[in-house]
């Protein structure tokens, strides 16, 4: 799980892994991120995580040779913290009116809508990183049965809060946007608020569970928004 490192431009570098996406890989990514910030923090402008990458924007780049020998000494100093057991409960109204592709998707999978909902809401997903839109969480753990290629022609407008499936991923659109994923429901929870510090409530490494709610509960939460609770 010790990554390679490459310098892309004089001030942009990247750690990369060839291992498959997993909790274990995320654990290493977060550990290396913390260690690199601890050891070289003064010369780093910011870090960004992808599924198999960790980018470093340098103020002043550490030479690649120095970083590679730093990596070689890594197993000795790396304190591997286990990933968080914290799991956020995110309420979702699964229905045709809140997720326009719910029925077609169930049909294409040869399962009932109820089965689709219970499959999607019975798994704890791991939060890997934020990207795509402010507050959008990249989640890992979608049951294989629900993997679905993205739409060939993306929708021009997906409503904020939409819960959707695309490829081997599932996620929540934090704001209205075009999108190519299949919509199965909507969450009344706000995912990003630039007036709050921090602007999001979850952190990479934590978990997330979708919990089905009734139309009544959905309407109530839309009118009186709440932040999600930990399980």
């Amino acid at each position, binding site marked *: 799980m010790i990554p390679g490192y490459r310098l892309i431009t004089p001030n942009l570098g990247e750690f990369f892994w060839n291992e498959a996406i997993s909790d274990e890989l995320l654990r290493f990514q977060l550990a290396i991120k913390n260690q690199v910030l601890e050891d070289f923090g003064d010369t780093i402008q*910011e870090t960004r995580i992808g599924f198999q990458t960790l*980018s470093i924007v340098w103020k002043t780049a550490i030479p690649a040779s120095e970083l590679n020998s730093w990596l070689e000494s890594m197993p000795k100093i790396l304190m591997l913290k286990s990933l968080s057991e914290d799991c956020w409960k995110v309420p979702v109204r699964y229905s045709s009116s809140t997720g326009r592709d719910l029925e077609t998707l169930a049909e294409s999978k040869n399962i009932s809508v109820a089965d689709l909902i219970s499959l999607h809401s019975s798994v704890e997903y791991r939060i890997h990183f*934020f*990207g795509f839109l402010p507050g959008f969480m990249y989640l890992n753990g979608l049951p294989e049965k629900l993997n679905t290629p993205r739409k060939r022609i993306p929708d021009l407008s997906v409503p904020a809060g939409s819960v959707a499936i695309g490829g081997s991923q599932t996620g929540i659109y934090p704001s209205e946007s075009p999108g190519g994923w299949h919509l199965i429901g909507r969450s009344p929870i706000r995912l990003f608020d630039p007036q709050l510090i*921090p602007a*999001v409530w979850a952190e990479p490494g934590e978990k997330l569970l979708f919990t089905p709610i009734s139309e009544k509960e959905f309407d109530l939460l839309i009118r009186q928004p709440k932040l999600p609770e930990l399980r």
Partner: protein
Amino acid sequence: MIKDPAYLKILKTGPGTSVQDLGRIGFSQFGVPYSGAMDHKAFSWINHLLKNKEYDAVLEISQPGFKAEFDSPTLICLAGAKVDCNLNGKPVSSFGLIPIVEGDTIEIGAFLQGSILYLGIKGGFQTDEILESKSWYQGITAEYTARKNALIPYFTTQEIPSFTNSKAKWNTSGFEKEAINVYPGPDWELLDKKSQKQLSEGSFTISNLKNRMAIQLEELIPNSLPELATAPVFPGTVQLTSGGKLIILMRDAQVTGGYPRILQFPEESLSVLAQKKPSQKIRFSFLKV
């Protein structure tokens, strides 16, 4: 300096007028793009001439047909594209400082060279700062594109601004420059030799699909590269889609993406790219890191 609130009133504008500064650095961990002026070079030049702070906010204008009125005296500065510009109906240069009195109107006509004009003001525009930046971005700031009758706040000085009639020259050679410095991206090695050669030797055309998020090029690079696990992307990252489209990500680009990242422009190339117009040609001039 007495800081009295004053307003620039937008009388007319095309799409793509926004307030920009150096952008939001350090919030990509929440999925927030950098944003910030497309042409940092012109942006910095303006704040330098105005003796502003280096991050003071300016107005970014990317379409002809802009007209606005100042309700109080100030000093402004134009830089970036070379445009037809009138102050109260009389032609003025679109490079450098212009003293403003109450009621002055400025009008921007044709873009003669370059594609983005900056209008800076003494002390900077005073719109809300959110996540440490005034740069407009949908979903973060209240406004993301200036509309007719919008009021953009600034501080008037109420005194005749000290103003050296400096003849500082703005170097416009970048507008015609075709060879633009670039580095191979993290996924460059996935390309076959033929595509690498095409990218190294070919000439590419800026398409009409150009905005603050990205610039799409007209030429295609047919490929059979796989879609990759989502990875960080930055302004200057060039993505290659499965359909062969080349997309240069710009300041408002999302922070992660799934397409192969075949090239990476360094910061200084972004200002040159920002000023390119649709149908202009560029070539990739490769650098070694």
